[in-house]
């Protein structure tokens, strides 16, 4: 059994003596006996480190680590530079609490201030917070920022990631907010629907760029419609797209959110990831969560501190802008380190490689009979094709070669595949994929 208790039995005895107690159990004499556990927990005995390691290694061994991944759909494999891993594993960054004591927490505070600045740069927005849980909750929180008593109907495009949509729905259900899903048409948001429906009750319109199908939507037009109706515009972006595509600000968004996982964070079977949020100046005090601000110490030295706390739960309790307390701090630090490592040229290079490789692949894949592109629209690094054979069998075949194929879509696009390409996919890998597709499968 492992133990991290740094007091020996003898020392504990001494402490009990000091307290005038006979045994450790006496510490619990105020707990009614009838609710106490009688026979202890029904879980296995504790194990030594080596045993636990073996156990967990066995579990890890039951997972397949794919050498080649052509799947994205909200979680993206990008290269994580060694320096980013080294920085993110620095012990004090890992084990510190939220920086409530700024005098001994300038490291964490400054790193978040830098993160906020970078998110502003990426989105073109004025203000960013210190992170929320992930892209989905960032969407949900952004919507909360827009709703008031007069405007409480929320519009979300059907082309956002299904998990995000489900999360937004859940949050809206909770808050008793009306949510309207704007239907998809040809892979993009149905602009006609938007025009017809937005009105003086509309609080916000949320869309994703590129959308779940990888398509670059005409955000500017949608946001024009929203603005006219007096609703706020929320754009959920892929950070790499943000580096080369029109920014949320340029498209007229009031709030930009997104999933920061692509910025140096491992796939990790879905988490921890990183929700980022940024908005225009006027909405600053509606932002949820931590925000770090710059100030001076009493000697006039520049310093950083958690600020605008009057928005937060620990001060405002039921009137807070959100309930968020712990966020994804270390992931934010990681993303900031990643962005520093790549620099403006590196981030754009990743984006351009994603773009170029996806288009290279799309051309080749769609030239294989039966794998036509489903949509005709411009895309970033994901696109949807048909599949002339059983998707499952195709995936199984790819798997045997160490390849995780594209994501099999469901619903209206059942039988279609959402492919994703990043800078990690070499031309060779793509050519190999196409060759396999051409081979076909033994049905």
């Amino acid at each position: 059994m492992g133990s991290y208790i740094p007091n020996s039995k003898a020392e504990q005895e001494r402490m009990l003596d000091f307290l005038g107690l006979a045994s450790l159990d006496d510490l619990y004499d105020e707990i009614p006996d009838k609710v106490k556990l009688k026979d202890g927990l029904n879980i296995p005995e504790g194990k030594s480190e080596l045993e636990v390691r073996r156990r967990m290694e066995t579990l890890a061994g039951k997972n397949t680590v794919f050498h080649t991944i052509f799947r994205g759909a909200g979680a993206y494999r990008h290269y994580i530079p060694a320096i980013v891993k080294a920085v993110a594993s620095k012990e004090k960054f890992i084990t510190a609490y939220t920086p409530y004591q700024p005098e001994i927490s300038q490291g964490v505070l400054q790193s978040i201030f830098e993160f906020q600045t970078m998110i502003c740069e990426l989105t073109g927005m004025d203000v960013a917070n210190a992170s929320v849980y992930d892209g989905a909750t960032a969407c949900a929180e952004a919507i909360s920022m827009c709703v008031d008593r007069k405007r409480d109907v929320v519009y979300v495009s059907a082309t956002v990631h299904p998990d995000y949509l489900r999360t937004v729905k859940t949050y809206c259900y909770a808050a008793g907010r009306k949510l309207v899903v704007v239907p998809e048409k040809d892979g993009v948001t149905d602009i006609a629907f938007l025009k017809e429906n937005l009105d003086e009750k509309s609080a916000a319109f949320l869309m994703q760029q590129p959308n779940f199908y990888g398509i670059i939507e005409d955000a500017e037009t949608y946001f024009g419609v929203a603005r006219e109706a007096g609703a706020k515009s929320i754009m959920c972006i892929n950070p790499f797209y943000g580096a080369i595509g029109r920014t949320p600000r340029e498209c007229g968004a009031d709030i930009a959110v997104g999933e920061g996982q692509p910025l140096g964070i491992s796939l990790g079977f879905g988490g921890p990831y990183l929700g980022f949020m940024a908005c225009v100046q006027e909405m600053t005090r509606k932002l949820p969560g931590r925000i770090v601000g710059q100030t001076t110490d009493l000697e006039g030295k520049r310093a950083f501190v958690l600020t605008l706390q009057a928005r937060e739960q620990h001060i405002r309790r039921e009137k807070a802008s959100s309930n968020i307390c712990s966020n994804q701090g270390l992931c934010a630090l990681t993303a900031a380190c990643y962005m520093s490592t790549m620099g403006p040229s590196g981030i754009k290079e990743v984006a351009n490689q994603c773009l170029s490789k996806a288009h290279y692949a799309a051309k080749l894949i769609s030239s294989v009979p039966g794998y036509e592109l489903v949509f005709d629209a411009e895309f970033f690094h994901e696109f949807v094709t048909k599949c002339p054979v059983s998707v499952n069998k195709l995936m199984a075949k790819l798997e045997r070669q160490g390849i995780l194929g594209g994501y099999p879509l469901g619903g209206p696009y059942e039988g279609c595949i959402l492919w994703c390409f990043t800078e990690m996919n070499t031309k060779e890998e793509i050519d190999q994929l196409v060759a396999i597709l051409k081979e076909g499968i033994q049905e």
Partner: protein
Amino acid sequence: MKLIFERSTPGLSCEVLPPCDVEPYELKPEQRRGQELRLPEVTEGEISRHYTQLESQTFGVNSGYYPLGSCTMKYNPKINDEIAGLPGFSDIHPLQPAHTVQGCLEALHLAERLFCEITGMDNMTFQPAAGAHGELAGLIMIKKYHDSRQDEKRNKIIVPDTAHGTNPASATMAGFTSVSISSGSDGLVDLEALKAAAGEDTAGLMLTNPNTLGLFEKNIVEIAEIVHKAGGLLYYDGANLNPVMGIVRPGDTGFDIVHLNLHKTFSTPHGGGGPGAGPVGCKAFLSKFLPVPRVEEKDGKFYFASDYEDTMGSMKAFYGNFLIVLRALTYTLTLGRKGIPEAAKSAVLNANYMMKSLEDLFQVAFPGRCMHEFVLTAEPLKKKTGVSALDIAKSLLDHEMHPPTVYFPQIVHEALMIEPTDTESKQSIDEAVKVYRQLYEKACTDPEALHQAPVKTAVRRLDEVTAARKPILRYNFD
């Protein structure tokens, strides 16, 4: 210290990627970004030095004593991080087919079994990313439950005044009105106040037990009865489970829903603010409301199931902060059935030991047996010397010690909320006590010294007022 932007030199970069090996493709001009992208241009050495220096201005659990009340800053074992770093976990795409992620699924399934046993619950979701997120999930389940019974008038959540701020905030986000009830003079839920508050509009009660004063709600059975009788459900804020894990299970005291803070009780690190994990467990009658997807097992094979008609939906994308759950699982397997309650006892022993060592100096807000933490009030000291809880906190910084939580819970004036945790040694508690004594004496003889503290830290006290009035929230490139 310089900001990373101030270390930037135009033209520099790290060479991370090979050149593109396919024909370049470009966005249409009208789709292209117009704004400049001002990120730092630095080499790896500069980045490395930057963060090394930032780390040196950061206080972690290993930097020194860290008795931050309510936060359970226990030691974060290294094996947990090592396991989470295995490529067989860290490099797994969340949307891989089930047969290629049996290890991940089994880990989640095992974690569900263990943490259900520890909390006395029947099912659990690992989707919530933190405690507050778990609270919201749990409250939405409560809402779903009442809705499913067409019991629609239940729009109030009762919250004791000692509760953490997230509780009322979560209630609001879940569309409830929160009703605050004051604590009795013993620091516990006032049964009469509770009875008065409970009624047919009661959706539920959120309770932290032991509460944030460090006191065990010994009337928990009666409390549960009152709430249940009124038709409400009981929600357990698990942030303070540490002192009672393996001793008493929330489920056995009447709670219907529980969240855990794996980043407090189960030794996963805080990351300077996160990520954490806030799994939510519930009794069987509520399981159908849990968020999807859920991990199921059939014939030794594990899979995700989402087809629960009554599910509340989802709290986030994918499956929660999986790598954090893994760390907590590793910890739980390490401690096991005996180690879990031993850790709890160590936490309680340490807290009582430290409380008793200090009680002649600072008044204990609610004397008697404490659990994992205790709350002192510096009010008498302040009256006598002008030295506040904040002054004490700031003075501790000069002694390479993290201060306790201050000014919380709000019902105690000049509160100092101390949680030594189970992984602190008698030796270091004794040393901390010595420092508290020195500070107390200093306060009596030279209060100004404490008003001036800290003096040895990277920066002195900050102008927080200006920070909030004229917020500077990002670097100004101009």
